[in-house]
């Protein structure tokens, strides 16, 4: 789960990280009062779950409260990538003399966190790492050892951070590590960490990705966050606990298990088609889940055919077949549906589908089913 800038900054503030004062608004008229409270000269920042806001016109300066209203008006409702701007953050202006990058994330190959520091902030850190590798330092933090000032000092200096900024930077990094651990984050980033003209370090932006598996111990926070998708179908899938991602193609896909579904998408591409979505129905694959999944998968005008690829392990194919029949009888889908059942009791599953006389194509192998679904999509 990704946070918006203002949500992340509220979390930073809780850990006493230095953040500029700001106020989030949803109506442009509220910008005037907000700007006045913040001293008149403010930044107007679009709150969307994606980077590259600056280039897209999602970060603007305003020198008077009235200009703030005008800029907020322009920004609210605009699209930045696939996200519509529904909230803007009005924030006090901060002078900039230098920008650094600070972050923590997972190092999966070592089973430890990474600490990353760069003397080149405010830009994409991956890019800096490629173009100016000497400006980025990355070390593992061993939770048994903890993080200590000497490590931050050493790495920051090696990355080219000025010595006069080290004291503040160390204190900010130690707090950021507490955010990482305390909030169960997958990623915490301050980019840029701004050094003002007065020489004070302040968090210019916030980026936090939270671990959904730990949501149970951060219930209040999770419930308060804006969903990180605007798509109504993705939102519905989330409510129903179905793992769904919308894609660009026209072959809708339903399968059980993330790996098998990804493999089905690969197969659709391999056979010359384009997948319309990722949908993992999960373990049980029973009728209620199947019903919602079919509705979700077909809820797009682009979709021309549906491929259901279920592998029966512990869940038997005959049970899955009965689930599919119930659903198809109930929702009467008009598009061609190709069903492939493999694994435990697959023959019973297929003959149950055959005898039911519902309008589905029944295939024995994954390849056959994929080829058929792709062909239907091409016919339109």
């Amino acid at each position, binding site marked *: 789960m990704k946070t918006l800038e203002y949500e992340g900054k509220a979390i930073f503030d809780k850990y006493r990280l230095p953040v500029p004062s700001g106020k989030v608004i949803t109506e442009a008229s509220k910008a005037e009062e907000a700007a006045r409270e913040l001293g008149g000269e403010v930044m107007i920042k679009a709150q969307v779950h994606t980077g590259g806001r600056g280039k897209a016109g999602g970060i603007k300066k305003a020198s008077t409260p009235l200009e703030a209203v005008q800029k907020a008006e322009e920004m609210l409702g605009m699209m930045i990538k696939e996200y519509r701007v529904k909230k803007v953050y009005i924030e006090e202006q901060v002078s900039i003399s230098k920008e650094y990058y600070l972050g923590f994330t*997972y190092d999966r190959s070592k089973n430890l966190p990474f600490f990353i520091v760069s003397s080149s902030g405010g830009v994409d850190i991956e890019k800096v790492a490629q173009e100016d590798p000497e400006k980025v330092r990355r070390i593992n933090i061993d939770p048994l050892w903890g993080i200590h000032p000497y490590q931050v000092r050493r790495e920051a200096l090696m990355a080219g951070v000025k010595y006069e900024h080290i004291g503040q930077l160390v204190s900010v990094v130690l707090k950021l590590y507490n955010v990482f651990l305390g909030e169960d984050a997958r990623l915490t980033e301050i980019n840029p960490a701004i050094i003002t003209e007065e020489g004070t370090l302040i968090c210019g932006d916030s980026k936090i990705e939270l671990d959904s598996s730990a949501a149970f111990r951060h219930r209040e926070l999770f419930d308060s966050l804006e969903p990180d998708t605007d798509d109504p179908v993705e939102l519905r899938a989330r409510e129903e606990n179905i793992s769904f991602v919308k894609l660009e193609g026209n072959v809708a896909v339903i399968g059980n*298990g*993330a*790996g098998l*579904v990804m493999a089905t998408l*690969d197969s659709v591409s391999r056979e010359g088609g384009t997948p319309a979505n990722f949908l993992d129905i999960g373990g049980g694959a029973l009728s209620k889940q199947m019903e919602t999944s079919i509705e979700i998968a077909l809820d797009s005008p682009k979709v021309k055919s549906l491929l259901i690829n279920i592998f029966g392990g512990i869940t038997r194919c005959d049970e899955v077949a009965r689930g599919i029949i119930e659903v198809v009888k109930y929702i009467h889908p008009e598009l061609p549906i190709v069903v492939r059942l493999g*694994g435990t009791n697959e023959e019973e599953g297929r003959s149950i589908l055959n005898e039911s006389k519902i309008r589905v194509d029944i295939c024995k192998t994954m390849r056959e089913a994929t080829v058929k679904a792709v062909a239907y999509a091409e016919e339109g």
Partner: protein
Amino acid sequence: MGIFIDNEMKVVVQGITGREGKYHTGLMLQYGTNIVAGCSPGKGGQIINEVPIYDAVEETVRHEGANTSIIFVPPGFAVDALYEAAEAGIRLIICITEGIPALDAMHALRRIDVIYPETRIIGPNSPGIIIPGKSLIGIIPGNIFSPGRVGIISRSGTLTYQIAYDLTNAGIGQSSVIGVGGDPFIGVKFIDLLELFNEDPETEAVCIIGEIGGSDEEEAADYIKNKFSKPVVAYVAGQTAPAGKKMGHAGAIISATAGTASSKMKALKEAGAVTVSTPYEVADAIKNVLGK
């Protein structure tokens, strides 16, 4: 007998009285797995499926000689179960539980690695291990596997079953099949398993089933290039997945340029593995490398 498993194996099921634990204990017993005890705090003294239940793992070690554990404990309590098993002297722990907070797993894996370096952990979020025809510790459906000489290592559940099923139908049996688990932090990794398969006389060729995210496949590729002596066939799921989107469980997320399916496939191919672009091409590729 197979990777990680020998005739001395005595299994304790942690969380045996839960729905999943109870159900899969039944299936594992049917498959012939030597389950000597269950652990479920507060249920000590009961018997389920003729298996005696204890309140603590330490008792199962003392009274029944348990040396291997499988964990079905719910996510909020599963790391406690990991610590308990490690301290009790269990040296192989298979953690089935899905949804453990990643940092909890990270801390547990690190501490156990330092304090009990002999202990091997498979998972969390692993489907388990199967030695077809002999033993099953996990939630893997035993009926679709057959004994043979191809090892399988995988990050996924159903996709592994799909590929193993194709192999079985093509008359190619399997030696040991291990699902390492789909979580960001896991114990045993591909490279650890390749080391074991390299020495395993039962295994002639290995099939790697990877997924986008992480760097397990790249590390495996490095090992294959330099040290692995048996043929490898690899498929990495998620070649068409868009960057930055989370597909299902936490394992399957691409961050920036690292961990894409194509970079993984490329690394494996350059290391000498035969790579295929769909799961249904695996069986033929295995036949080819075995010279059948």
